């Protein structure tokens, strides 16, 4: 495997310790072996795009990082804390890891601003006024501040996904995970979401993105990983990954999605 050491990804990423480490991680759903020995290190400020056919384990991989899925063997260490059954550790890690879902998963019974302030008020114990100021700041950043008092059902898919990103950002996370953030969107809305993500990347956020948006991968990622059958087949900086894939399966996959 072609893991890049942490000091080199690009000039953008600072020289740091890895913030996420997977050490020989295995996971099964019943008898189905989803993750087969994942080794991966992600540095602070690094941006990784994971692609691969459906069922290859890429969503499961990132969902293990905030323990929405439990791994059964190996170690996952996030920001110097190992993920175990210890619920306190899990909740601490979840406050530091933001996640954006394919289907947005906004809370439909709360207004946009209430969606954004729930986490900070309940988990971080931020006073309401301050939480609302932060929320408005991030809503402004995703260009949707004027919708603050509406309910999620009144917004378009692209707007909802931008709200979901802002909701995660309100927790001031160190890492952002994106699980196919544009797959459920109408084509004309993909760009507005990707633009927000690019803006985030420019600020140096650590990002792991499961996506088939190869244009996004090319322009933003430090590294592109290709997964198939529960293993990371290969990983390389985008220019290398797209121009010179090493494995047959990668070549086949790229030829299918780049047409």
């Amino acid at each position: 495997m072609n893991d890049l050491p942490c000091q080199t990804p690009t000039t953008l990423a600072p020289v740091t310790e890895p913030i996420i480490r997977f050490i020989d991680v295995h996971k099964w759903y019943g008898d189905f072996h989803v993750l087969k020995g994942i080794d991966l290190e992600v540095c602070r400020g690094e941006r990784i795009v994971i692609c691969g056919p459906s069922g290859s384990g890429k969503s499961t991989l990132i969902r293990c990082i905030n323990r929405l899925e439990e791994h059964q063997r190996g170690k996952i260490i996030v920001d110097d804390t190992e993920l175990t059954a210890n619920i306190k550790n899990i909740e601490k890690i979840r406050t530091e890891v933001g996640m954006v879902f394919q289907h947005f998963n906004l809370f439909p019974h709360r207004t946009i601003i209430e969606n954004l302030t729930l986490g900070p008020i309940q988990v971080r114990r931020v006073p309401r006024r301050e939480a609302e100021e932060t929320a408005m700041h991030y809503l402004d950043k995703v260009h949707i501040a004027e919708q603050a008092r509406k309910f999620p059902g009144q917004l378009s898919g692209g707007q909802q996904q931008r709200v979901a990103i802002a909701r995660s950002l309100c927790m001031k996370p160190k890492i952002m995970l994106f699980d196919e953030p544009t797959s459920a969107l109408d084509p004309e809305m993909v760009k507005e979401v990707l633009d927000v993500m690019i803006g985030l990347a420019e600020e140096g956020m650590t990002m792991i993105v499961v996506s088939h948006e190869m244009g996004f991968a090319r322009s933003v990622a430090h590294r592109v990983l290709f997964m198939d059958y529960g293993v990371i087949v290969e990983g390389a900086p985008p220019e290398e990954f797209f121009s010179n894939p090493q494995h047959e399966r990668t070549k086949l996959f790229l030829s299918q999605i780049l047409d």
Partner: protein
Amino acid sequence: MATLPPAPLPEHDHADAIRPPIVALGVIGWVRQNLFSSVLNSLLTLVILAAALRFLPPLIRWAFIDSHWFSTAAACRNDGGACWSVISANLRFIIFGFYPPDQQWRPLLAMALLIGLLLYSRERTRWKPALLYTWLVGLAVMGVLMRGGLPGLPGVESSQWSGLPLTFLLAVFGMVAAYPLGVVLALGRQSHMPVIRAMCVVYIELIRGVPLISLLFMSAILFPLFLPEGLTINKIIRAQAAIIMFTAAYIAEVVRGGLQAMPRGQYEAAQSLGLNYFQTMRHVILPQALKIVIPPTVGILISAFKDTSLVVIIALYDLLKTTQSTLSNPVWMGFSVEAYIFIALIYLVCCHAMSSYSRRLEREL
């Protein structure tokens, strides 16, 4: 083939909004559309009309024209109209039962307070912590009013509580306590902790497998046998506990349905923000799940309200039982239709208020 030039745009290119076609119908149109829209409908309309003509006039005659309102029983027996006098003459006993007559302003005031609080609580904008405290104070005041024992308020044994106040007491406390207990049981049944889940499942299935009557019997007869010598628990409280336990089991199953209808993404989104179990339930899952199950929940609450009348079998004198006692008085024997219609109307008003309020709540939430 030559391509056609593009069709000219309409004169106003942001097309004028067209008014919807006029569908107002007038009386005849309404009748046609609603009563005679098909052969079957026309037939049904005619049948119902004929039945109404046949049965309504005699009914109205019986209930309102030939009826007696404030007469003696003897006067009633002489002609065929309804004898509402059975109610007006016995109203005090039907409503207040054995409560000392000179003290009956107290249950009256307590009921007025209860109804006032219920009416006040209808507006969702008033659902604040202060309202909860108001209720606690209100319930305490009602308790003091009923029980007495203060200077100026002679004590009244709970065995003398009866009639409408008892029905309201059993119903309101039954519903108010059963609802949260049912929610807790539903959450317990979904728990990842096997012991808690098993306990909840056993409780729910046991209670649901037994009729309310047998629970009431157990509370009245069996349960005191297990208490240590000298300790007794008030019969009303025992019946109340049976009603609460019974209703809670049914509410638990309804709420579980609501919980299972919640998409997994809602749990995941809440968890990924770092919310713990209680925060997730309190702020994300329950507000949505409980809203989905308002209609079946209200169904259960309504039937719980009506089921309070089963306490007659353990000799508590609720509204139904005081009415029956009145009818067993030889003077008023034989006027049960009128008396039961009156009781039915009281139940109808209460149940209708509950269901129409639930519909409003569903719209607003």
